[in-house]
């Protein structure tokens, strides 16, 4: 049958039943004006933001746009959204193109709505994608009204939007069907769903009444469509416009580099707030972020704090900020930060800065840096932050390390090892940055010992700073004390430059991240390796070899500041693989790794029982059946050891650093 009807004459009359079609253009203009005004208001709001350099490097940005806006790579990571959003997104694009085709043909007289193209694209494909829109909307309805996952906010707006889309699609099919029936369209079957409507309608309606219904529905459909367009900038549909823009202007550097420095001297001088007090301190990109949120809730879904039942919800924070920023007074006089904290005083202090929220966000909103921005205000302007964090900060100020009450010194770990300080070994090619966690927490001293012994075994000429080493400032910066961070950073950079250090190896991912991404801001540019990277390099160069791999099953926990924030996933796994006979993976790993609970100053906070992130992670690690949980971070070590010990019961499960694993497998030979 298709063959008979497939001829070059195939087409359909445009506006066959419609008079006064000029009205269409009036409505179009009006809807554009309304939408344009809404968009203008948003753009003007963004323009009031502080500067941010996000239009550099056009090529990588275009690539981002192609991959994530057009290609929707992150969006489709989630099974449900892969269907629902793809149906709506592609459906809208196809229907938009179809409308353009009609306009080109009808208004500009380009005879393209003809023949095979008409039948295959304008009829069949458009009809199918229209049906997909209906299917997508149906999925979304079921999801919201039946499944009701915790991460989604069920509000009237989302239901209204879905209802409108569904109504537009359904009226479209009615129009199609009635046209086919009333005009006895010989090619009607090329629009299968429309054809179905035509057949069913023909049973109940006369051609005349279908024509009348068509006129009425046609105008109704037009009102819906133009109403939809006009409505976009006033709802979360705004993301249709803001998401691509937000993706184009996304941060290109690794997320470990996402905190921006402040000009504190200037702020002290002018009296402007340090950190974010009101909307006025947000950058235009922050403001755009808020307008790009689709309320999908993925950030909250992956947030470790939220997962264990704490009040922090990155999505709600973004939405609260959005509403406050849009309010006429923009949170004045209390300021947006105080308003947000008053509503949920603990939330901001539950963030481990693990960055899972940013990794999950399909539109590349930067939630974590905003949390730090708010913390900055609370810490530096209000001195309002948890007491245990205050103690860590005070200790950093007076002792250069955050561990109040430690009885260890920076050199204890090296007792009995021929480790030299940089002053004694001027020719050292590598500086081993020990870190406070490595030097001052007893358990981690073994890790640094193993690392140093491995370096020595491989013949690496290395030295340490010893007593000259200070905390890199990572906890201070994440807690929000930028002032203290700057002091520590300047001091360390001065020390490192004085010793002409070029290459740094460290077993702490937090130090690694700060040395690598944050010290260049203070004039310290070094080649920085995490010890897992450097040791893997030594192994691949044949300078270290595993003699007797451990006969145990090992799983590896990705440290956030090594993995997600810096993309180092393989080096530690290589070490695990050569040091042990069996490796198993946890469910949440690599980019999607789950925090140990110790970042962002949270290792200094006593979490309430039953809401401990480390126990959640330990549960997952134990589920793999592994006998050794390998880590690559001193904070993960203490958090997971605590968590594993609390949950392992009678099972014998050890937490070991990858360097310890390697040293065990190498050292037995030595």
């Amino acid at each position, binding site marked *: 049958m298709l063959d008979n009807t497939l001829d070059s004459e195939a087409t359909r009359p445009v506006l066959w039943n419609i008079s006064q079609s000029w009205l269409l253009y009036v409505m179009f203009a009006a809807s554009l004006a309304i939408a344009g005004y809404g968009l203008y208001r948003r753009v003007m709001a963004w323009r009031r933001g502080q500067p941010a350099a996000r239009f550099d490097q056009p090529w990588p940005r275009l690539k981002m746009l192609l991959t994530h806006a057009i290609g929707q790579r992150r969006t489709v990571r989630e099974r449900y959204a892969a269907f629902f959003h793809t149906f709506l997104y592609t459906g809208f694009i196809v229907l938009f193109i179809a409308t353009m085709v009609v306009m080109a043909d009808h208004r500009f007289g380009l005879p393209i709505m003809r023949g095979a193209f008409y039948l295959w694209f304008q009829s069949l494909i458009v009809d199918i994608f229209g049906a997909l829109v209906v299917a997508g909307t149906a999925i979304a309805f079921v999801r919201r009204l039946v499944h009701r996952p915790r991460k989604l906010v069920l509000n009237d707006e989302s239901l209204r939007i879905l209802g409108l889309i569904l109504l537009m699609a359904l009226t479209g099919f009615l129009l199609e069907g009635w046209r086919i029936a009333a005009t006895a369209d010989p090619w009607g079957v090329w629009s299968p769903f429309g054809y179905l409507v035509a057949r069913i309608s023909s049973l109940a309606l006369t051609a005349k009444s279908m024509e009348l219904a068509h006129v009425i529905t046609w105008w109704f459909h037009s009102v819906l469509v133009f109403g939809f367009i006009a409505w976009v900038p006033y709802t979360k549909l705004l993301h249709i416009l803001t998401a691509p823009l937000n993706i184009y202007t996304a941060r290109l550097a690794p997320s470990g580099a996402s905190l921006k420095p402040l000009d504190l001297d200037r702020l002290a001088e002018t009296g402007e707030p340090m950190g974010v007090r009101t909307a006025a301190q947000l950058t235009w990109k922050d403001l755009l972020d808020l307008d790009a949120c689709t309320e999908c809730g993925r950030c909250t879904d992956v947030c470790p704090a939220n997962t264990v039942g704490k009040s922090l919800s990155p999505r709600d924070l973004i939405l609260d900020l959005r509403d406050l920023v849009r309010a006429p007074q923009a949170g004045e006089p209390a300021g947006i930060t105080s308003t947000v904290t008053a509503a949920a005083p603990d939330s901001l202090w539950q963030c481990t800065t693990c960055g899972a929220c940013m990794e999950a966000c399909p539109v590349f909103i930067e939630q974590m840096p905003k949390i730090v921005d708010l913390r900055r205000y609370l810490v530096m302007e209000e001195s309002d932050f948890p007491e*245990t964090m205050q103690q860590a900060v005070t200790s950093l100020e007076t002792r250069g390390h955050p*561990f109040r009450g430690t009885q260890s010194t920076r050199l204890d770990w090296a007792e009995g090892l021929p480790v030299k300080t940089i002053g004694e070994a001027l020719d050292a090619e590598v500086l081993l940055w020990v870190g406070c966690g490595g030097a001052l927490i007893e358990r981690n001293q073994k890790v640094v010992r193993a690392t140093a012994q491995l370096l020595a075994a491989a013949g690496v000429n290395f030295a340490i700073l010893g007593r000259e080493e200070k905390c890199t400032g990572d906890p201070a910066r994440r807690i929000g004390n930028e002032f203290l961070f700057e002091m520590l950073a300047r001091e360390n950079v001065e020390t490192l430059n004085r010793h002409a250090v070029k290459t740094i190896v460290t077993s702490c991912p937090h130090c690694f991240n700060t040395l690598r991404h944050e010290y260049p801001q203070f004039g310290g540019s070094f080649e920085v390796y995490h010890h897992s990277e450097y040791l893997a390099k030594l192994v691949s160069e044949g300078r270290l070899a595993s003699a007797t791999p451990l006969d145990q099953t090992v799983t590896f926990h990705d440290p956030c500041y090594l993995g997600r924030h810096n993309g180092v996933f393989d080096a530690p796994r290589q070490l695990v693989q050569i040091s042990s006979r069996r490796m198993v993976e946890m469910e949440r790993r690599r980019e999607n790794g789950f925090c140990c609970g110790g970042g962002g100053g949270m290792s200094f906070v006593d979490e309430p029982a039953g809401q401990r992130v480390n126990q959640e992670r330990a549960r997952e690690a134990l589920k793999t059946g592994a006998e050794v949980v390998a880590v690559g971070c001193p904070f993960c070590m203490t958090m997971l050891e605590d968590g594993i010990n*609390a949950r392992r019961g009678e099972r014998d499960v050890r937490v070991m650093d990858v360097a310890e694993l390697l040293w065990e497998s190498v050292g037995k030979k030595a």
Partner: protein
Amino acid sequence: MSRVIGIIFSSAGYDRAAQGVTGAGRRLADALGLPLQMVVVGGGGGDLAGSLAAVADAVTVLTVTGVADYQPEQTLAALTDLCRGEGAQAVLLGNDTWSQELAPRLAHRLGGSAAGDGVELVIADGRLRVSRSVYGGKAMATIELLRDPAVVWIRARAFDPATAREVPAPIESLEAAPTGEPATFIIERKSEVTGEARLEDAQVIVSGGRGLGGPEPFTDLQDLAGLLGGQTAASRAACDSGWCPPSWQVGQTGRKVAPGLYLAVAIRGASQHLAGISEAKTIAAINNDPDALIFKHCRFGIVEDYRKVLPLLRERLAAMRKE
């Protein structure tokens, strides 16, 4: 005639602190070849005066008209007069609140020198030297008092009690007249007599860790602590597991304690925990793992399952207490 004067406040009775002051006073008096006069401040200490009379050469019960037991300015003035009148060569006090409050001022009024928290007193070249712990217990210092009289408040429990004399000393009462209108006046006092003194102040702490395996053994630890006149605490792991109240937690994120004896039962000794007990004088441990870190910080310990040790230990300690 010059003498050594020991000052005791009547409210506490002849407790260990009072015994220590008397003991230290006796030895100092003997070293100087002077008599020991004990002064009981405040009335109502009938038994106390009697007990002191058994070990001292003279006992004075000092009251100030209109003052029940203590008012800073009134008591200070009365004590100054008494010490001046008796020609005190050295004055010893305990390290209770009132003694510490008065001692420096008394020394100043007498034209002497004071030192506190003494744990050892010696006479060298006719001057009193006081040894005390300084720098948070990291060092010991010996301080020589350059002016007379020497006024010293001592860590009374560090001194052995004095032995009884053959003939009890006479007890005299002295009622001092109040001096004008005092500028300070204690109007209200509360004694918090509770079974749960602050963990930070406990002299003996019996503490349990994750190795206990559950909440039940904490009852045994409480029994043991009760026998030793101490309190019960726990490691973070044990508190985390919900086996005991969070307020029991000792460690970097919990309480920092400084007991004379810290008995760690089934505690491995994570640095987190050790940071809370670095001021403990003696640490002892019961642990079935000879490599447990805690042993590196112990004076003594036993490598054994606590389940086997605790019942025997309780029995033995109970027997020793009866002796």
